């Protein structure tokens, strides 16, 4: 091969690879474009203020009503409940793995958590419906409905625990050894070093992990579709059936709404809200994470 053709080939390959990387930007722009343009027909029928501030979501009844607050409420109820459970468990697991566990235990526990993270969400929904509700919730609270927010929150918590524990573990382990040594040399116990030196030093990493877990919980679809049901209710009672934004999209996609109907268009409006929420949370998480990396890497 001559030198010119070699250089041409090098340039072409670089361009090709750069194209692959740029595709990711195209995808993001594509998502934004699709969600905006496809929800325009919906907003021709429903005023944006009614959509954002309305307290009744009833696309299948007459008269139709498209106030997203019940869906937002269902989503936050489940995602918030899940975090309430998952934060202490995930952080404690990370502290144990990073500060206490002997290497052998670590080597077993990490893959198990990875497997847990890889279980499809539809399986967790099945677990919620066939185990959590009948065998855990109903014996404790007989008034629990078959589909309920609590069972969904519990399985979503199980799903995001690996997210929190693995990212927190990374953050804790990035804290320099010298800080731990300083703590021990100042007559601190392991508990005090872990919770009052290492954990505060890794706090931004912990916060980032929680934010990412929150975004995941908000976007979680299959488990909540199975476990929480399909009744958009403006309630904070976790034992009642609620509908999340994601579950609503599934409900419409599964149903037989004609492609040009308002309820079909509405899924793009709901998707837009969902995307914007998770996007903002993710950007915040990346910011916090960048600051953490700056401090320790």
């Amino acid at each position: 091969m001559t030198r010119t053709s070699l250089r041409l080939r090098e340039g072409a390959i670089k361009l090709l690879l750069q194209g692959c990387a740029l595709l990711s930007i195209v995808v993001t722009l594509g998502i934004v474009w699709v969600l905006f343009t496809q929800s325009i027909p919906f907003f021709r029928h429903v005023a944006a203020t009614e959509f954002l501030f309305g307290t009744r979501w009833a696309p299948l009844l007459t008269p139709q009503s498209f106030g997203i607050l019940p869906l937002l409420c269902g989503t936050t109820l489940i995602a918030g409940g899940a975090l309430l459970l998952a934060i202490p468990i995930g952080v404690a697991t990370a502290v144990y793995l990073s500060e206490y566990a002997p290497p052998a235990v670590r080597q077993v526990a990490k893959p198990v958590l990875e497997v847990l993270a890889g279980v499809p969400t539809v399986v967790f929904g099945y677990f919620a419906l066939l185990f959590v509700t009948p065998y855990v919730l109903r014996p404790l609270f007989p008034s629990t409905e078959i589909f309920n927010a609590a069972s969904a929150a519990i399985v979503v918590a199980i799903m995001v625990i690996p997210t929190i524990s693995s990212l927190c573990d990374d953050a804790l382990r990035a804290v320099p050894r010298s800080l731990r040594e300083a703590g021990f040399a100042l007559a601190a116990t392991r508990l005090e070093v872990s919770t009052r030196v290492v954990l505060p030093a890794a706090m931004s990493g912990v916060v980032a992990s929680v934010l990412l877990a929150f975004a995941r919980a908000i976007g979680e679809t299959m488990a909540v579709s199975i476990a929480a049901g399909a009744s958009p209710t403006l309630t904070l009672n976790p034992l009642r059936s609620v509908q999340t934004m994601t579950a609503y999209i599934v409900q419409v996609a599964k149903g037989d709404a004609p492609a040009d109907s308002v309820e079909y268009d509405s899924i793009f409006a709901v998707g837009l809200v969902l995307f914007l929420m998770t996007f903002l949370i993710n950007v915040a998480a990346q910011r916090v994470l960048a600051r953490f990396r700056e401090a320790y890497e």
Partner: protein
Amino acid sequence: MSAGAALRESAVPQRTTLAPGQTPDADVVEPIVRVDQLTIRYGDFEAIKRVCLDIPPRRVTAIIGPSGCGKSSLLRAMNRMNDFVPGVRVEGAVIFNGQNVYAAECDPVELRRRVGMVFQRPNPFPKSIFRNVAWAAQMNGYRGDINELVEQSLRRAALWDEVKDKLSLSALALSGGQQQRLCIARAIALQPEVLLMDEPCSALDPIATARIEDLIDQLKSQYTVVLVTHNMQQAARVSDRTAFMYMGELVEVDQTNLIFTRPGNPRTQDYITGRFG
């Protein structure tokens, strides 16, 4: 102000037999720390071999030797910071105030309150200057006025005048030399009896080094200082006694002026004249 770290009356343990070839530490009558036939292994590697050493109270004892000679291992054995190294095995004893620190009934947390440590690189917590000094004292149930303790400790570490107006600022905003003095202040806030210093100036510039050396000189009126250094001039400048280690063995220990003028062992002679190291 009366003596800060008052020594405890303690039964002086019986002198144990020394390894062959070792000079008995005759001029240390009442050691505060006695290292007795100490052997430390990391896996198969023997870092310290049957070392005996007496540390006299309220003096500065320097431990010198080429890198890898085991001087840091010896120092870290005195407050059991070696415990955190995986695969470490310790034989022999370190007697502190009449008690073997490796005995089962010795609580390492209590030991480390009374035997403080300053590290090679300044390692302040990412907290405020005040919290850095107050943290350990509060945790260990300090009963006096904490503001007073912080001021006193910072004064003793010759840092007070530089930081008194910014106690609530992050310790990470200080310069390297200031950070190291903060670490010393933090260590003496616990009123330890012994202060272990592991090459405390190796990450600092000459001016900061000079300040720390002055500080060490002042500290010995109240504390027992054990200083590990690879810098012979530093040992000569600040220490009263010097121990020379080589390949995990304690070659020689004596008064500093004697070690540097009339070393008893040819290997010490070679090292201090710069023939190896």
